[in-house]
């Protein structure tokens, strides 16, 4: 089965398979180059022997055979090395969490929990706005109270002033002095009537 080894790619920055592929290709290129060098050396050597019967074609044939042998051998070795490297070196054990994923160890929120957090945040912000405006409303009410208090104090002062005037003129209780005044004016009327009769 196919294992993308994405976690390893997250850590190494490349996929282990790609790495192995690059190593394989590098080895393979190296093998081809070496084979060509070996072949050219053999051709030089053969050219150096007098009456040598080996033709370059034969040399090429055996080079190819040797290359095939080496490649098969190399493939076997390489697949073992690949297996070991992929399992033991370029591999992140299942219990290991990369540093950037450590956060999921403490806070692993499900979608619903995350949404609940978001809802709570917006609800709290809404609550904050409501409280702030309630505060403003109370401050506005204080302003209104100041105006009303000033008006009521004016009225109280007005009555105090009235009371002071009455007290200054000896009529501390308006009602009583009204009664007194009425009696006096009645007496005065009687006196006048009396005087009038006498004068007639």
């Amino acid at each position: 089965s196919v294992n993308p080894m994405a976690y390893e790619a997250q850590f190494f920055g490349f996929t282990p398979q790609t790495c192995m592929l690059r190593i394989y290709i590098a080895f393979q290129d190296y093998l081809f180059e070496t084979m060509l060098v070996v072949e050219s050396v053999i051709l030089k050597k053969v050219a150096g022997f007098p009456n040598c019967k080996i033709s370059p074609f034969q040399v090429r044939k055996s080079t190819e055979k040797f290359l095939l042998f080496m490649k098969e051998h190399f493939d076997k070795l390489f697949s073992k090395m690949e297996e070991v490297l992929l399992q033991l070196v370029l591999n992140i054990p299942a219990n290991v969490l990369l540093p950037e994923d450590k956060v999921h160890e403490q806070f692993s929120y499900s979608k619903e929990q995350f949404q609940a957090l978001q809802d709570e945040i917006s609800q709290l912000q809404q609550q904050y706005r409501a409280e702030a405006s309630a505060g403003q409303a109370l401050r506005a009410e204080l302003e209104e109270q100041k105006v009303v208090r000033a008006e009521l104090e004016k009225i109280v002062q007005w009555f105090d002033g009235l009371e002071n005037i009455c007290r200054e003129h000896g009529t501390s209780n308006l009602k009583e002095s009204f009664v007194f005044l009425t009696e006096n004016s009645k007496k005065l009327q009687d006196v006048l009537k009396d005087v009038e009769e006498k004068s007639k």
Partner: protein
Amino acid sequence: AFDASVAQVKEYIARFTAECQSWDQLLLRYQQSAEETSRQLEECRRDGGRAEPPTYLQTSQAEVLRSKPNYQKILDDQGEVLSCMELVLDELQQAVKLLEAFSEDSRQYLRRLS
């Protein structure tokens, strides 16, 4: 087995392609929301954060705010007191005028008489 592996590879390709796109969309969404909030913040700074108040009925002060008296009515009621006082003082003033007139008449009458 080969076909199964090919199918699996195809499935991985589809999944990783979709995941890459959703990562980009997620990043873009947060980027846009950051830009949008910064723009709102600038706007907020420009007009000093003034805003229409939401209803504060659900706040801790809701009870206090709901029990707000009618200050205008309190003052208007005082108006009644004052207009009543005005009547009283007018009557007082008329009574005093009447008395002054009466005492003046009686003084003249007595002077003539005497």
